[in-house]
């Protein structure tokens, strides 16, 4: 182990190539993860932020807000279901808004939510005709104090505060009371026809300790199959494009990890071949295969750790340099951590390919060499 460590310090040049390639792979891994998280956050963060266990849609709506309608009677039924602690209505209208001081063609795309139960990071519903705006809309001039005109009917909505990191379908969100939302959607999309007390979906909190999936089943039975209840994370996955994006990116990430395994495996297999004589001598002096393999793993882990740190540094730098609103790139600490763990796995797993070769080296090969 100590010998392996000294080799790293005395002959760093031997490890530069592998470290550089792995650093590129680490960067790629975190970049891909950051893009995926950025894309996902753009289309799902408003739904993911719902402070509830279940979302209830009409069963005919195919898990989409636009097609879903929950009338007050159904809501009352849901509220009665054992295990349901709290129910709040929610609805969204995707519209373009005019911003004062901006040209008539320079519209801000907004997703106006009407809500009852405040999602994470959102205060309780504001007064009539008012809304909180996501900070991503500031680029478009939508900021606190401004009154924007939403949709073709130019429904005035006054911005009374800001929220952060909440988008839906890549649009910045507005958060208003249920009545403001109903008024806005009916004025601008008359065919939507949202009657009094009607919502698109319900956010349901279950009793502490209750099994959310079991409650979901009970809700759907209680409504006679008129509703489809899903967990918030399933509702996020049901947003169009989300699962496709996720699986595409995860495949690329998986391939990148496999490439990292191959790089480590090839590099250390080559090093092990080069060290056959040295390992023979060390075995003759009493080193076990375990000690020698431990040295290989140590070097693999150190090289990969340095590469991972470099990759994380580059990924963080990119996060700082990319102007907000251009490329959807969100570098989460959890993504850096999971990428690092993948690379650590690649380092150890890659080294395992050298184990057989280390085991096979015969200590007797050390003596009387050169005959």
């Amino acid at each position, binding site marked *: 182990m100590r010998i392996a460590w*000294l080799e790293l310090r*005395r002959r760093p040049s031997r490890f530069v190539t592998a470290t550089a390639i792995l650093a590129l792979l680490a960067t790629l891994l975190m970049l891909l993860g950051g893009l995926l998280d950025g894309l996902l956050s753009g289309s799902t963060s408003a739904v993911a932020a719902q402070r509830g266990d279940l979302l209830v849609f009409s069963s005919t709506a195919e898990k989409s807000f636009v097609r879903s309608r929950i009338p007050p009677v159904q809501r009352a039924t849901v509220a009665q279901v054992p295990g349901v602690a709290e129910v709040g209505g929610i609805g969204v209208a995707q519209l373009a808004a005019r911003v004062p001081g901006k040209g008539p063609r320079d519209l801000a795309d907004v997703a106006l939510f009407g809500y009852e139960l405040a999602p994470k990071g959102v205060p309780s519903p504001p007064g009539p005709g008012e809304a909180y705006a996501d900070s991503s809309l500031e680029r478009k001039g939508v900021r606190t104090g401004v009154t924007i005109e939403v949709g073709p009917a130019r429904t005035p909505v006054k911005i009374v505060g800001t929220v952060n990191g909440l988008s839906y379908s890549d649009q910045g969100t507005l958060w208003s009371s249920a009545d403001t939302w109903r008024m806005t959607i009916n004025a601008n999309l008359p065919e939507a026809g949202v009657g009094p007390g009607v919502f698109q979906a319900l956010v349901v909190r279950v009793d502490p300790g209750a099994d959310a999936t079991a409650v979901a089943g009970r809700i759907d039975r209680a409504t006679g199959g008129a509703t489809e209840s899903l967990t918030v994370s399933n509702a996020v996955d049901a947003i169009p494009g989300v699962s496709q994006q996720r699986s595409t990116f995860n495949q690329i990430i998986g391939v990148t990890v496999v490439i990292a395994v191959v790089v480590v495996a090839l590099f250390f297999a080559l090093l092990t071949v080069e060290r056959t004589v040295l390992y023979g001598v060390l075995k003759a002096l*009493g080193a076990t295969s375990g000690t020698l393999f431990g040295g290989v793993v140590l070097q693999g882990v150190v090289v990969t750790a340095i590469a991972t740190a470099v990759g994380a540094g580059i990924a963080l730098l990119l996060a700082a340099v990319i102007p907000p609103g251009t490329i959807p790139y969100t570098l989460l600490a959890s993504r850096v951590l999971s990428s690092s763990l993948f690379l650590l796995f690649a380092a150890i797993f890659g080294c395992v390919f050298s184990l057989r070769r280390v085991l096979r080296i015969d200590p007797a090969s050390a003596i009387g060499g050169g005959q």
Partner: protein
Amino acid sequence: MTTVGQEQEQEQPTRPALEMVGVRKVYKMGDEEVVALDHATLMIGADEVVALLGPSGSGKTTLCSIAGGLLAPTAGSVVVGGQDITGYNAKRLAKFRQETVGFVFQSVNLVPFLTARENLLVVDQLGRRTGKAARDRADQLLEELGLADRRDNLPSQLSGGQRQRVAIGRSLMNEPLLVLFDEPTSALDTELGEQVMELIRTEMKSRGTAAVVVTHDERIVHYTDRTMHIVDGVLHA
């Protein structure tokens, strides 16, 4: 002291360093079998320095490898300093090599990125891990071998003779009962070879350590207590 007392005092050190009885080694290469060593029976005293002389391919390296626990014999028994290693598995043999024997290989094979001193300390790291005691021992050995001012040099910065001396130091680090030298002078010129042999003899005799020096060079026998000849895998004492 009486004669009896003297005999008792001598009891411990006179336990032979190496005893081989009926040792046979057969290498299998596909269908072909090579008998490298046959019916080898020998005994080497606790402080004896013995030359093993024979032509190339006669089985010298094979004998050394078996004596040092690098190879398992096909038949026969091997006892080193009273320890019967005949049936040892790979792991016990590794421990045995760590603790009991020293090797100097034909091609010197120092660790290229470690200094002379660190090359000696490798033995301690792989074995007993005594730390300070090992560092003192390494310094003392380097001093004895005339390498005190070379201790922080890498092998590439040393001459052939100096490297051979580092290898000798390494073989003595674990205070072995028996040191096996496989053609220690074959890569050196005559003068250097004689110096190294002189050094081997001095080091062994001052410690009372037994040694087998493998060679095909007749001149080496002047530095040893006794010579064993080997031809085609058969020993002639």
